[in-house]
Each structure stands twice: as C-alpha cells, then as structure tokens.
C-alpha cells in the first residue's frame, strides 16, 4: 500500500504513515462490525440449541440487535461507584479493548495482506494476549467491591495457567514451521497433510496439540465452560459488575474481539489460514481470495465456540486449575520433546 501512496507523489515516510493508518482502519473498522455481528450469531446459535428463537425483532431476522444494544448502551449514564478508584476504574475497559485490537496487527489475511509482517509475529500475539489479563485484574481491584475482586483473582490465576500450555503448543507449531512469522507458518502448511490437506491439524503429532490449543483458547478468553471470571451464579457478573454504559460496552467488544482472535489463531496455526482447505488444482479455488477462506475458517471455529458454550456445563475452579497444570502442561511438554525429537530424527532441518 505504501507504493500506491508513493505513486501519488508523496515522500516515502509520508506514504508509509498514511498507508499504516489506512491499514489500521481497514482492520479495526471491519473487526468492530464483525464483533457486532458475531455477538448476534452467538446469541442465535445459543438460542437454537436451547430451542428458543433468539433476537428476532430488530431488523430482518434480528440482524440489527447488536447495533440496537450498542445504541442503548451509548445513551446510558456512566456510573462510577463512589468508593472506586476512579482513574483505574475508567482505564481498565480501555486497556481490555485496546489490547484486543492490538494483536490483529500481525494477522495475515492473504499472502500480502498483513499490516506488520514481522518475523516474531507469533511471539507478538503471545505477548499481547498476555496483556489481556490486566484489564480484568485492574477493573476488579478498582471497583472496590467483593465480587469483582474475586473475579479478578480468578482471572489472574486462570489466564496465567493456560498461557503456559498455549506457549508450549505454539512452540510445537513453530518447530514444525521453522519460523515465528505468521505468513511463514501459513505457507508451511501447504500440502502438509498427506500432500493434500493444507492444515497442520491432520498431522498425527500436532492433532493432540490442536485439541489442547482449542480448550486452552476457551480458558484464555474465559468462555464457557471456563467462564469462572463472570460466573453469574456465583459472582453476579464478575469484574463487570460495577460497570455501566460505554465502559461496559468496551469490555463486551474487547471480549468478543479476543474470542475472534483465538478463532483466527486456530485457523492460522492449525488449519492453513488463508490457504484453501485442499491442495488440489482440479477446482480453481486458489483463485478465491485468501481472506474468504480465512473468514470461513474463523466463522466455523466461532460456531464451535458457541456450540460449546451452549452445551457444556461450567467447570469448578479447582477442576479448571487441575486441567491446566496437571493435564495440559505435562502433555504439551511431552509433545515438545516428541515433536522436536521426531523432526531431528527425520532430518527435517537438514
């Protein structure tokens, strides 16, 4: 995009600046729209599994429900509890929302369509997603109220626990792809499964890691069945209890942007990102632009997330901790050794 603006007669720096701003807007604005629509999808899927109708009043098929909710929230009064720590209370939702947007900078939507094609792309995603916990912890503490505080404690422990196993799963993928660059990881999956399937998930050694990653992603984004940070039967609404109006909406948007990010990581790391599913030339699907495939895969994983939310009962907190530390951590450690051993033995790097 920088070249395009340079061809308009701008200097390189000015062109780079405008191109970057345009790129940020091109990612952030559709992402916000996607979050609004995905909230609608979540409610519809959840309703369908519970044999209800879900939102069906605002707009055709209730499609505009999220926008109506957004407008309602926007017009509400922002209430700050008098005992709250005001500065931190207001900063916390902004942190959650900003961090949820930041990680999208390195997501490849096509061979060339990356905002920042850096060679530590995956580490960047890991670093940014590890920041997500601060929004929850700070909001819980700043609310100066019992339930948000419990929620903050739970969130801090839960997110750190599952980040460890996510880290090892990413190491497994990086070992096989040989790069931290997101586009490099996508390209390493071309014809990976038996020369036909463009996905890491059909590799016998990486398939268990995909399962671990999928479950850890649920825990990392505090989705059901691991939504203990906002377990409504125990903690009212968790860290969001004292929030209202736009500050509440920012939490909401940030949370769903994070869920979408985890679905995207699933698609990129294990299901070939913007590559078509099969590496066969019979059908001209390499002509379909990459982002269509990526969006289809993201949507599929989001459906799986909603499906799990509607069907699986909530974990107890000690079960959650046990799963993270006593099952996933040893399992992913064993697979790091196993995969690196296999790759060395078969001469993958020579």
């Amino acid at each position: 995009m920088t070249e395009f603006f340079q061809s308009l007669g701008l200097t390189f720096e000015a062109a780079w600046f405008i191109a970057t701003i345009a790129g940020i807007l091109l990612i952030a604005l559709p992402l916000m729209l996607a979050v609004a629509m995905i909230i609608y999808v979540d409610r519809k899927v959840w309703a369908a599994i519970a044999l209800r109708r879900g939102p069906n009043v605002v707009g055709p098929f209730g499609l505009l429900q999220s926008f109506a909710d957004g407008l309602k929230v926007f017009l509400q009064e922002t209430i700050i509890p008098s005992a709250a720590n005001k500065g931190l209370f207001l900063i916390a939702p902004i942190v959650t929302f900003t961090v949820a947007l930041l990680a999208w900078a390195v997501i490849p939507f096509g061979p060339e369509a990356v905002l920042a094609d850096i060679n530590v792309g995956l580490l960047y995603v890991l670093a940014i997603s590890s920041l997500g916990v601060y929004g929850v912890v700070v909001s819980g503490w700043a609310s100066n109220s019992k339930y948000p505080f419990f929620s903050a404690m739970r969130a801090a422990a839960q997110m750190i626990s599952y980040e460890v196993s996510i880290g090892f799963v990413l190491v497994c993928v990086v070992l096989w792809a040989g790069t931290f660059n997101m586009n490099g990881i996508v390209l390493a999956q071309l014809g990976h499964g038996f020369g036909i399937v463009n996905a890491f998930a059909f590799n016998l050694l990486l398939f268990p890691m995909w399962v671990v990653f999928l479950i850890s992603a649920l825990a990392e984004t505090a989705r059901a069945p691991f939504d203990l940070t906002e377990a409504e039967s125990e903690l009212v609404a968790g860290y969001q209890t004292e929030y209202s109006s736009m500050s509440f909406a920012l939490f909401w948007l940030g949370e769903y942007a994070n869920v979408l990010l985890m679905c995207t990581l699933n698609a990129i790391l294990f299901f070939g990102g913007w590559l078509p599913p099969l590496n066969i030339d019979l059908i001209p699907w390499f002509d379909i632009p990459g982002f269509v495939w990526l969006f289809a895969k993201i949507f599929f994983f989001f459906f799986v997330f909603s499906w799990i939310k509607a069907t699986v009962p909530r974990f107890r907190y000690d079960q959650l901790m046990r799963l993270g530390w006593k099952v996933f951590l040893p399992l992913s450690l064993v697979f790091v050794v196993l995969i690196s051993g296999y790759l060395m033995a078969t001469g993958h790097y020579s």
Partner: protein
Amino acid sequence: MTLQVVAFYLFASIVIASAVMVILARNPVHSVLWLILAFFNAAGLMVLLHAEFIAMLVVIVYVGAVAVLFLFVVMMLDIDFASLRAGFVKNFPLGIAVALVLLAELVLGIGAYRAGALNLGAAEGTAAPIPMTSNIESLGAVLYSEYLFLFEAAGIVLLVAMIGAIVLTHRDLRSPRAHQDIGKQVRRNPDEATIMTQPAVGKGVDL
C-alpha cells in the same frame, strides 16, 4: 530516521517518568502498574534496537507473568498507610545513608562512563549481528554453541528454584487432610449418588 528519534524519546521519557512514579505513588498497586508501564516501554526501546526477540520476551515474561503475580500479591495485601508513615522519623537517618550510597554509585558510574568505557573484550562469535538472519536465529546460534554451558547452568538454577517451590507447597497425600480423588469423582454415577426414599410425615431421612 526522524520517526525513530521521536519514538525513542517517547519510550525513554515514559520509562523514566513511570520509574519515578513507581517510587512516588502512595498506593502500592499504583506502583506495580507504573512498573508495568516502565517494562512495556523498555520493550519498545528494545524494538528500536532491532532486538525484537528480547522485546517480546520482556513483555511475555515480565509484563505477562512476573508483574501479574506482583499485582496479585500486592492487591491482596491489607496495607495500613498510617503505620507505614509511623516509622518515618526513626528510619530517616538510615534512608539518608542508603540514598547517599546510591548517589555515590551513580556519580561513580557516570564518571567511569565519561572517562571511557572499560574494554572487557568480546567473546568469539559475538562480534557483529549476522546480516540477513533473524534475531532469533543469530541468538540461537550463539546461545547453543558458544554459551551452551552457561545456558544449561541457567537452566539448572531455574530447575532448583522450581523444585524449591514444589517442596515448599508440597502436601503429603497420606496426611489426614482432605484431598480430592478426581478419578473417584468422575466414576460416580446417579445410582450410587442418589437414593429414592419415601419418608413418613414428620420423620427424617437416614443418610
């Protein structure tokens, strides 16, 4: 070039300002949050040095894990601010002494730097970054060849720390304190977990 200069001064001034605020903040939770801001901007400085791998590690390890645990502990502390200030006069001379020592060290450090840095020599293989390889590759090439023993020694130190933490929190499973048998919980089925009774009016149920 100008953009790098602007970014450098932005990151550097935020690092210094938030480091000062770590000390000045009255509330320990605010101190930890300022510390996190300092870490984060230090990572930004690393990126400007083309050390993006180190920058990401700083964010993942310090901001993402260590500082969260800091915050976790500090948030749970029930601090009485009045008692903190009570010993101010008593500890004042000691504080002045420590401050003087630190000041002397700073002056010495800056003086030594002005006089020309010590030439400690460079180990073989550490000279210049290898062109056209990524940060991670050149770091790995040095770490797993030149500094392999130091790297493994660091690993052993971490292992000892880990074993220490496990020993400190270890509970003997044979002790009479309650512990859960997850397998037993999973194997439970409705037949053995529930009973159907028809108690007479006014009579309880024997469990």
